[in-house]
């Protein structure tokens, strides 16, 4: 028997596989296909204080080994999320979830996190300071060490649950931002969010997505994500949830060797709704193949020696 259990800030997960925010909704669509209680947990759709429609369509573009999205944090607002989605969720998901929160001002982050913090089925608050698809917010907090630290401090001051800050790769040094968040009291880090990218329609000679640019995700970004997790692992002591293009059990192991305690799976869920189920089912086989008996033991393993 192999041991797939990992622990995030005292919360033991059956396995490190977590569907990433924005690719899994509130789990409902996937719960119709398989028992999602097999997941380590999942990170629900990025939630803001007020309801948001998001950006104009088209919001999606095809890329080589990936995709671009410019959804722009469409969500029903935190009140609706805690009153309906989180209650409804209890019927089909019996574990705690990761609450992904975004904002457009420090005050908004605070208010939203305060409400989320009171929910019994939330295990971790994942604060997104890295959405590339919204103006005057999101990524603006994640590309500056001072702002990143300020959001972290503000959220920590009003919450009791572990706070993980979700970092943007669209920076000169992700290590500096990571350290700033750790110093400001973050309990963990999630990285990476999508990479700012774009596509141009050759027939129309105009950007494919209405918002011109969007977040690039999918297997194409895996090496970039892996490199950043590796670098951040060397610089901080708090746990890292690694993500970016993870699509297989082998990718999970590689990400953990780079320094991730748990791993999120994003774009893969959209192409194959059973992606996380299959990754979990394949995990034991991959572990045996590489002579791993406990996943806990391999975290940051690539740094040794």
């Amino acid at each position, binding site marked *: 028997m192999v041991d797939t259990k990992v622990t995030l800030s005292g919360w033991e997960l059956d396995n490190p596989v977590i569907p990433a925010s924005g*690719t899994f909704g509130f789990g409902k669509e996937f719960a119709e296909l398989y028992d999602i209680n097999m997941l380590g947990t999942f990170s629900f759709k990025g939630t803001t204080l007020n309801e948001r429609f998001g950006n104009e369509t088209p919001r999606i573009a095809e890329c080589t080994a990936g995709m671009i999205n410019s959804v722009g944090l469409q969500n029903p607002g935190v009140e609706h999320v805690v009153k309906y989605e989180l209650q409804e969720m209890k019927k089909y998901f019996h574990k705690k979830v990761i609450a992904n929160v975004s904002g457009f001002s420090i005050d908004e982050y605070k208010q939203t996190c305060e409400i989320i913090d009171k929910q019994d089925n939330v295990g971790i608050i994942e604060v997104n300071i890295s959405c590339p698809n919204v103006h005057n917010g999101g990524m603006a907090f994640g590309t500056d060490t001072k702002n990143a630290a300020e959001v972290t401090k503000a959220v920590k001051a009003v919450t009791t649950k572990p706070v993980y800050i979700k970092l943007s790769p669209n920076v000169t040094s992700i290590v500096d931002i990571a350290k700033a968040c750790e110093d400001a009291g973050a309990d963990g880090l999630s990285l990476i969010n999508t990479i700012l990218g774009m596509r141009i329609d050759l027939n129309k000679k105009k950007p494919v997505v209405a918002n011109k640019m969007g977040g690039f995700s999918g297997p194409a970004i895996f090496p970039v994500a892996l490199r950043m997790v590796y670098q951040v692992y060397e610089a901080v002591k708090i746990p890292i949830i690694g993500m970016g293009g993870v699509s297989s059990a082998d990718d999970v192991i590689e990400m953990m060797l780079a320094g991730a305690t748990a791993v999120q799976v994003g774009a893969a869920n959209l192409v194959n*709704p059973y992606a996380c189920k299959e990754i979990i089912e394949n995990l034991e086989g991959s572990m045996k193949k590489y002579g791993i008996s406990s996943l806990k033991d391999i975290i940051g393993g690539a740094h040794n020696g």
Partner: protein
Amino acid sequence: MERVVFKIKNNIKIAKNVYEMTLEGNTSAITKSGQFVNILIEGLYLRRPISVCDYDSNSLTLVYKVVGKGTEVLSKMQEGELDVLVGLGNGYDTSFAGQRPMLIGGGVGVPPLYNLCKKLIAEGKKPSVILGFNCKDEIFYEEEFKKLGVEVYVTTVNGEYGIKGFVTDALKDKDYTYFYTCGPEPMLKAVYNATKTSGQFSFEERMGCGFGACMGCSCKTKYGNKRICKDGPVLVKEEIVW
């Protein structure tokens, strides 16, 4: 929704840039006309959504136009298997049709109306069909609809065949109890303005997942935000915001 592996039985060109693909596999996840499938195409990342033209328990017919890389690759496949998500979208609701519903299709908006037409006939209704195309070599499925025994009116924008003009020109003197339409957005808008009864519109949008998870294809309606892939692609006239 179900993920099913289909076998390609046939893939033939039936009009300018338009192909008809017949697939063999389990279609039990399809519950209504106007639903779509999402096809994994080798070498491409995202699946490609294509409306269901017709189906029975073990076969699926798709009619699609080559508009980009995905459909181009698809058009060249003569054999092999396809990984398909089946039974996506809400589809058309036939319960509002009345006795004489009008089916209005434009270009590759025509295919989903074919199975709908069959269903309406099976329910004892007397549908009529208006098929709009730009020119003669784009026309397809006129004969197929006629074989179902319904009145078929074909329009071409350049007047090469049938009624000269748009689907709304053919609609002018017609009498109908309800309508179902699918086609390019400018046509849908014109149909919206030209029709006197209520009806259902099938919309198209670039999709990420096709099953409601990514919020890539959202639209605003009078009844709130909807996902074209999951809450649509069919919207009723009364809820549409242009």
